[in-house]
């Protein structure tokens, strides 16, 4: 079955980001398919490339990154949510003359159309916030 997963919560502040990760991992293990991951609102922080965690704690951003790469998932961060939260890619950085990027290469920035498209083309949408 084709799932899309929407994540509204940042890692570390709320358990929801971790639940979304566990859920996504399980559904892939069970042979289901991910049509799209969509990171919305504070959820965009799951795709930060700059997070550093202590060795005894989970680096959820790295977990997502590995999952996305290993399964070649389509992972999108909402543009409106991302840029105002400082999650930016090369293109946005250049456009606004910022010296850095902060988005993991495994995700791309796109609009809310990708969320609507995901809902239309998935069998199930599951929201975590």
């Amino acid at each position, binding site marked *: 079955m084709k799932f899309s997963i929407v994540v509204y919560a940042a890692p570390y502040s709320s358990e929801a980001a971790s639940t979304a990760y566990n859920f996504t991992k399980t559904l892939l293990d069970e042979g289901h398919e991910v049509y799209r991951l969509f990171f919305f609102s504070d959820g965009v922080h799951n795709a930060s490339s700059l997070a550093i965690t202590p060795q005894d704690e989970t680096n959820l951003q790295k977990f997502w990154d590995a999952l996305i790469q290993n399964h070649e998932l389509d992972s999108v961060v909402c543009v409106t949510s991302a840029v105002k939260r400082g999650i930016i890619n090369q293109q946005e950085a250049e456009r606004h003359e910022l010296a850095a990027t902060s988005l993991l290469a495994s995700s791309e920035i796109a*609009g809310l159309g990708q969320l609507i498209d995901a809902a239309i083309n998935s069998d199930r949408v599951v929201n975590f916030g």
Partner: protein
Amino acid sequence: MSNSHTFTFISRTAPYGSNRPQLCLDAALAAAVFEQKVNYIFMDDGVYQLVKHQDADAINSKTLGNALETLDLYGIQNVYVCTTAMKQRKLAADDLVIAAQSIGDEELKSLLENSNTVFNL
């Protein structure tokens, strides 16, 4: 893109305290742009979004009451408020910035049953 999908958006939170009302609205407008069937339901504290005479300049924010008028501009006509939420907050239809249909629990359930995707913020 297929046109047979019904989206229902439930907006349950108060304006300004969090960004959830704006997220819900943005997602609904996106669905409308994609020419999907959209229901928009104000429930719980969400009905506070509809109160007249809002002016959020002083708190460095955009006024949400005005933004809700865009629902109509984007062709979203199925706009509902939960009767219970209105009563609990002593609000009447006259207090609201846009026209919305009052619904009880049974109508809410039926709207949800007939939806393909529900966003609940």
